[in-house]
């Protein structure tokens, strides 16, 4: 497995109080690819994802050990260090959540919001150019260019999720974390978002957490299989899904696949 690394973890451990949710995770996230993290409910997928931009800090009693490095930016150093600039980190590592969490504001304001927080741009024409650019990236510009003043919550769920992705893109991140980004969407909208992710991977490193095995198989280039807080296997998606090295991946992934299939019938 040869790739340029975007994020690397070294013996990452995470505790919620006395409970250890992640155990000695050492893994490399490839640059400009899609990495899926799969595993049964409660295995630590979202917890791992939230380490990459320190979102777990919001959970009381969380304790982290080990090192986590984001390459291309040496200034950040160990992301797990206490004195890290969290605002700079979360600008570099954007996140999209399960349900589209658009603000109860216009489409324009939803996109301008991040630019203001990070004091990136102030001139109106520059802001508009960035808004156009980000909406074009997510395939919404043609539909929304004349409706930028409309409340974002009036959009369809798929459009709202695209807008959330545009809201991340406008801050020019390098890494985008996606936590079950399609779980609120219907199958057709899901496929369209997956197509969008395949386009975005040319410019960004994406990490997607999904309990949907089929989605991980369809969309990702690399897959990590987590089980009870441990990274059981990491490899190219084709290999993990057709010829896993670990027996546990083989047995558990078959069960998960069947579980997913029964959910879909």
């Amino acid at each position, binding site marked *: 497995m040869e790739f340029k690394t975007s994020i690397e973890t070294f013996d990452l451990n995470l505790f919620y109080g006395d409970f250890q949710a992640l155990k000695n995770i050492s893994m490399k996230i490839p640059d400009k690819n899609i990495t899926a993290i799969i595993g049964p409910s409660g295995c630590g997928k979202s917890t791992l994802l939230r380490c990459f931009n320190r979102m777990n800090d919001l959970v009381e009693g969380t304790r982290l050990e080990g090192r986590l490095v984001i390459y291309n930016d040496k200034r950040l150093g160990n992301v797990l260090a206490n004195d890290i600039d969290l605002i700079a980190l979360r600008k570099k590592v954007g996140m999209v959540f399960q349900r589209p969490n658009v603000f109860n504001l216009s489409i324009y304001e939803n996109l301008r919001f991040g630019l203001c927080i990070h004091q990136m741009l102030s001139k109106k024409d520059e802001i508009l150019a960035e808004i156009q650019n980000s909406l074009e990236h997510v395939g919404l510009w043609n539909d929304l260019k004349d409706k930028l003043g409309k409340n974002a919550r009036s959009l369809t769920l798929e459009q709202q999720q695209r807008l959330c992705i545009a809201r991340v893109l406008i801050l020019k991140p390098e890494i985008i974390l996606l936590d079950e980004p399609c779980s609120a969407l219907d199958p*057709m909208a899901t*496929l*369209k978002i997956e*197509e969008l992710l*395949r386009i975005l991977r040319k410019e960004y490193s994406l990490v997607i957490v999904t309990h949907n095995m*089929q989605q991980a*198989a*369809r969309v990702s280039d690399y897959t990590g299989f987590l089980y009870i807080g441990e990274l059981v296997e990491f490899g190219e*998606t*084709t290999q993990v*899904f*057709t010829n896993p090295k670990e027996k546990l991946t083989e047995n558990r992934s078959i069960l998960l696949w069947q579980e997913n299939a029964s959910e879909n019938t």
Partner: protein
Amino acid sequence: MARERFRKHINKLEDEMMDLGCTVAAAVGHAISALKNRDVDAAKKIVNDDMIINRKRWETEENCINLIALQQPVASDLREIVAIMNIITDLERIGDYAEGVAKIVILLGKEPLVKPLDNIPQMAEKGLDMLNRSIKAFIERDSDMAKKICDEDDEVDKLYDKTYHELLSRMIAKPDTITNATYLIWASHNFERIADRVTNICERTIFLVTGSMQKINVSKY
């Protein structure tokens, strides 16, 4: 368009299958020439090149498995991938028949033949023509054409029948020709089997278009 990437993968599988089909058809053509011209060097090349056919088949089969595992195809997409997996197996076997004929050319060497080849090249050319048209029928999703090609297998069977009985008579009349005549029966049988495999390919086209699996023509051999 949703699943554009998936469509590209399926198109690539079709391209790979056509490429394998062309390579196999070329091998059959070379085997016919090698037998007609008693060209041992050409026959050795056919034997060596069979591994190219085998490699292409494995690569495409692996790509089919990956696509099924990763993209969860359904309906006509699933039928197409399953059909391609079966067709490449038949194509690879046809490659083996060409190799089989080439090995017989090598065994025969420059030894005079027990009888002129007569119907053997004709039977082989017929099988080759059926093969080329069967790939075309698949690509064009032409199930009528596929059914028609299946029916043509009877012509090949008749030609084989004739060759087989002629050679058998020779062996009975002149037992010292048994080895030589047996080689020719083997070569004929290899060519006859090509047409049988072509009917399998045609049945996969019918399966792809109609969704129904059916045996169209049961070969006598």
